[in-house]
């Protein structure tokens, strides 16, 4: 092979990659926590079939699921300032990720809620549990447990999707890679390293979500 690898060329720029990993992690954590929260509320609204709210959530879900993430990001970052809403690139990136994950997780969690047998809810009602108690213990937790693997995958997809936030100069991991590549022209090496970093981060994230799932759902089996 004629190409000579020179990974040493990346070493002076390690700080860019390190900062990138930190920012990607921040974006993912905030985006995932708030996005799934939004998804739970959206799923509740959808499943409750409350007339107006359910339809508004439906429009939101279809709007987000049928447009590209990059366009949503550009809309928030370049479009909203025209309406007087100016966000920093970090705020815009987080907001885009929350809105995006919110829509997808609404659908995923709604599927989980619909999979709860009606008899289970009726049993809870006959035990005189109120609506909030029923939703919390009888509906949402078993629903989340059923769809936890699908939701975990969606969170990982959103983390990987954060790479396009480099387009609005959010200095996450892909930004670091592009910038280093522009400085030393060692594209292959840089993307090699960054691919590895994303892989490690994805695996760690999946493992973390699995542990979190065990903590949330398995312990309660005996309660």
């Amino acid at each position, binding site marked *: 092979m004629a190409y000579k690898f020179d990974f040493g060329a990346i070493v002076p720029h390690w700080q860019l990659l390190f900062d990138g990993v930190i920012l990607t992690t921040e974006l993912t954590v905030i985006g995932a926590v708030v996005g799934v929260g939004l998804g739970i509320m959206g799923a509740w609204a959808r499943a409750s079939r409350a007339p107006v709210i359910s339809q508004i959530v439906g429009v939101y879900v279809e709007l987000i699921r049928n447009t590209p993430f990059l366009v949503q990001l550009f809309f928030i*970052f*370049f479009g909203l300032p025209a309406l007087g809403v*100016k966000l920093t690139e970090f705020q815009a990136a987080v907001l885009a990720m929350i809105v995006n994950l919110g829509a997808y997780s609404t659908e995923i969690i709604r599927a989980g809620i619909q999979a709860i047998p009606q008899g289970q809810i009726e049993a809870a009602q006959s035990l005189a549990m109120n609506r909030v108690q029923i939703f919390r213990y009888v509906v949402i937790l078993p629903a989340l447990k059923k769809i936890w693997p699908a939701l975990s995958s969606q969170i990982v997809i959103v983390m990987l999707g954060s790479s396009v936030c480099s*387009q609005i100069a959010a200095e996450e991991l892909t930004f670091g890679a592009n*910038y280093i590549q522009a400085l030393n022209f060692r594209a292959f090496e840089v993307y090699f390293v960054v691919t590895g970093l994303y892989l490690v981060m994805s695996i760690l994230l999946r493992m973390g979500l699995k542990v979190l799932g065990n903590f949330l759902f398995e312990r309660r089996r005996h309660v």
Partner: protein
Amino acid sequence: MKQFFKTAIAAVVMLAAPLGAASASALDSISEAGVLKVAVPQDFPPFGSVGTDMQPKGYDIDMAALIAEELGVKLELVPVTSSNRIPYLNTGKVDLVISSLGKNPDREKVIDFSDPYAPFYNGVFGPADFSVEKAADLAGMSVGVTRGAIEDLELTKIAPSDVDIKRYEDNNGTISAFLSGQVDLIATGNVTAAAIIERDPPRKPEPKFLIKNSPCYVGLNKDEPELMAKVNEIIAASIADGRLNAIAEKWLGIPLPEKL
């Protein structure tokens, strides 16, 4: 034998002399022919491009017309590319190169350069309400640049540490960020700034300070002092009477800088 060489050299010199005299002054041959042949770009707006009427137009074309008019001869435009413009001059196909030509040591070995006639620089641009005259004034502001471009590298070196340099993927991203107000200022080339101004944007990129200056010069063949003097005289006169400034405002949207 020695005598033979002397005679031969004398003969060559005598034969060459009239030729030398005829080509001694490019200026004379231009006046004699009544035509000034100028190499101009056809693919580099706003300096030179082909209009909808198939006629070349641009800063360089107007400059060529101005010089031809001052010399009192007809103008013949020769479209060239950036890679063949100097060979066209060296082989006598054109008298002058007015083709957004920058000066560098390699080029100076093969051709001569007039005084600069057009601004070409990377700099920081922004709306009038930002008072910035040098890199140090940028403190606390945000500047959009295209990642890895020359202005990114230079600005990173000279800007104070609290300047927020936002690096975008390409020129379009940088321009969008500036126009939508996501960054206060933009670091780019004056030609890019001109292209923004041409579209009459809500935020005008007015020049603040230079990062790297590489103005355009008229290229001439070597050892043509008369033509060189004449061209420089025309450039100086057109700067003094505002005609060059009018060309700059027409094509670049910005008046000529005080010093080219």
